[in-house]
């Protein structure tokens, strides 16, 4: 049986936020909930922690129904997005707080705090107060307070979103290598899809009211169940293009304005059977290349005009106009391209997504 089970939970304030949301997390699993800001991710965590009462549904933890348990009796621990460190206590006292609450003896407290702070490399800050340490150190202190309690479920609410890119990368690595986190179930909430992809054993993409897709990083990124999921994961955002599927010369083709090119072999059969001539094409920027090198038999080369080009560091982003459609693609950052320049684009059609123009669901999946 799963370690943590959420069964049809409902929670609303003026409007419903969580609507019959269900998922489960195994022991040792690092489950990431990824979604746009304001969608209800924090509400979800707060429900699991017991800080919000459910309007409906049940929460099972380690086989027991904890739906009615108050937060101070559930064995969950949470890091808040704002860290919620006690400003009048030192780092030591902050981290020791759960142990003090359970009336642990001072010797054990000292030993456990030392263990945790050495692990998180903040053992030199024990006497400082929260306002005397940096953002990254505060985050680690908050994490220490969560870890020390040895709860059954870790709840991490956007723990690194307010830190700069360098520290985020370091802390991501730490999340990967911390054994403690792998001993119990963890729910990690973020709005940064890259973090989600990097850290999650499984990722739940959150939409209005619930999780629209649950899967591994590769699954949700390369096989999104809907346009919403595809749109949320990826920077720059996926290209969304209205197109038609037509039969020509015995093959299924994509018609984009005046352009026509064949549907990739692996998609043709399913798309044929779906009988949906109008589609929304989803093309990830990384699957459009500059130049004419054919990556596979399922590629098409077309000419386009450069609209804008920006070198963003390790890569470049270009917007090019393909017969009236603007497409965003990734390029290298060393070359320079000016507006109006003619370029050749190679589209990898085997990586195209086909979404229903109204519902947005991925036509390749299910009925």
């Amino acid at each position, binding site marked *: 049986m799963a370690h943590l089970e959420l069964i049809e939970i409902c929670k609303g304030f003026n409007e419903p936020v969580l609507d019959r949301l269900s998922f489960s997390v195994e022991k040792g699993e690092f489950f990431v909930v990824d979604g746009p800001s304001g969608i209800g991710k924090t509400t979800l965590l707060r429900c699991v*922690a*017991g*800080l919000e009462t459910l309007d409906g549904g049940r929460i099972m933890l380690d086989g027991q129904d904890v739906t009615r348990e*108050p*937060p*101070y009796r559930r064995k*969950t*621990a*949470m890091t*808040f997005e*704002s*860290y*919620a*460190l*006690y*400003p*009048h206590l030192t780092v030591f006292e902050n981290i020791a*707080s*759960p142990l*003090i*609450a*359970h009336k642990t003896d001072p010797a054990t407290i000292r030993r456990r705090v030392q263990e945790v702070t050495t692990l998180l490399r903040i053992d030199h800050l024990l006497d400082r*107060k*929260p*306002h005397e340490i940096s953002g990254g150190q*505060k985050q680690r202190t908050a994490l220490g*307070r969560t870890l020390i*309690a040895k709860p059954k479920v870790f709840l991490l609410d956007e723990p690194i979103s307010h830190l700069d890119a360098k520290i985020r990368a370091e802390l991501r690595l730490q999340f990967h290598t911390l054994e403690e986190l792998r001993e119990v179930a963890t729910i990690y909430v973020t709005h940064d899809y890259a973090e989600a992809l990097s850290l999650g054993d499984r990722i739940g993409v959150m939409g209005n009211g619930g999780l629209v897709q649950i899967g591994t990083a590769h699954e949700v990124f390369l096989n999104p169940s809907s346009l919403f999921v595809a749109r949320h994961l990826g920077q720059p955002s996926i290209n969304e293009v209205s197109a038609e599927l037509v039969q020509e010369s015995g093959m299924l083709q994509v018609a984009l304005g005046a352009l026509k090119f064949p549907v990739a072999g692996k998609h043709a059969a399913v798309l044929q059977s779906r009988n949906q001539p109008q589609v929304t094409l989803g093309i990830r920027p990384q699957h459009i290349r500059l130049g004419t090198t054919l990556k596979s038999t399922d590629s098409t080369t077309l000419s386009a005009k450069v609209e804008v080009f920006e070198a963003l560091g390790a890569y470049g982003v270009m917007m090019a106009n393909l017969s009236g459609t603007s497409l965003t693609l990734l390029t290298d950052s060393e070359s320079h391209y000016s507006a109006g320049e003619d370029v050749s684009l190679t589209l990898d059609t085997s990586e195209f997504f086909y979404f229903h123009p109204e519902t947005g669901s991925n036509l390749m999946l299910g009925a």
Partner: protein
Amino acid sequence: MSESNYRLVKILLLVFLTIWLLFTLFPLYFQLITSLKPVAEINAMIPTFWPKTLRLGNYAGIFADPGSLKSLIDSLIVSVCNTLLSLFLGTLAGYALARFLKGVIGENLAFWILSNRMFPPVAVLIPMFFLFDATPWGTDSYISLILLYLVFNLPLATWLMMVFFRDAPKELEEAAYLDGYTPLRAFFKVTLPLVFPGMISVAMLCWIFAWNEYLFANLLTGTTVKTFPVHIPSFTSGSQTLWNLVMAFSMVAMLPPVILFILLRRYMVRGLSLGVVKG
């Protein structure tokens, strides 16, 4: 702003502040020198701005009357007890209003409590006399003043504590719940330390009101209990008011609030700026 404009503003500011300082400090200065003058000098036709003779004995003189010391002690008893009571009740009520009674009912209740502070105290002067007269301990007792001053201090304490509690991030209490603290323990361990500077400033405000109150003390008490404002009129000789002794006594009565304020000024600023350290 150019250099010359800036300098002009600075000079004007200095002039204005000097005038303001003279205006506010002069009464205190005059009070001090009056307290050091002999009787003859205080009644001189042309007031002197520096005592011709220094009579430090005035200060010893006021305590020749045992009532003086008693009055200061009575004031202390009443003001401290009332402050503690106001603070205790106000903190509990403020917390309830901040955390539990949100929404229309809570807002209205909070406003009604504050509105009690808005009417002129003299309006309830006579009713209060009759009210306390009907009690077993009567009007002339410590308890009557302590309870009476609640009428004015409790709304203030409640309202201010409510604001301070509202400012204290709820998340810190929630973190405490997740640590395993029950709401009661969380209140003492986390919330109270956060609003502590606020509580100090609330205590100061309540205490100063209770310490200086004259109108009700004069009407209700006078024999068993005599606070210092009520004792001041006793410095007369026949039909003449001994202003030098009055001033001396006032200087002494002023000392506790001033000393406290200087010691606790850090808390006054922090408390009244209604901001809580966000860790």
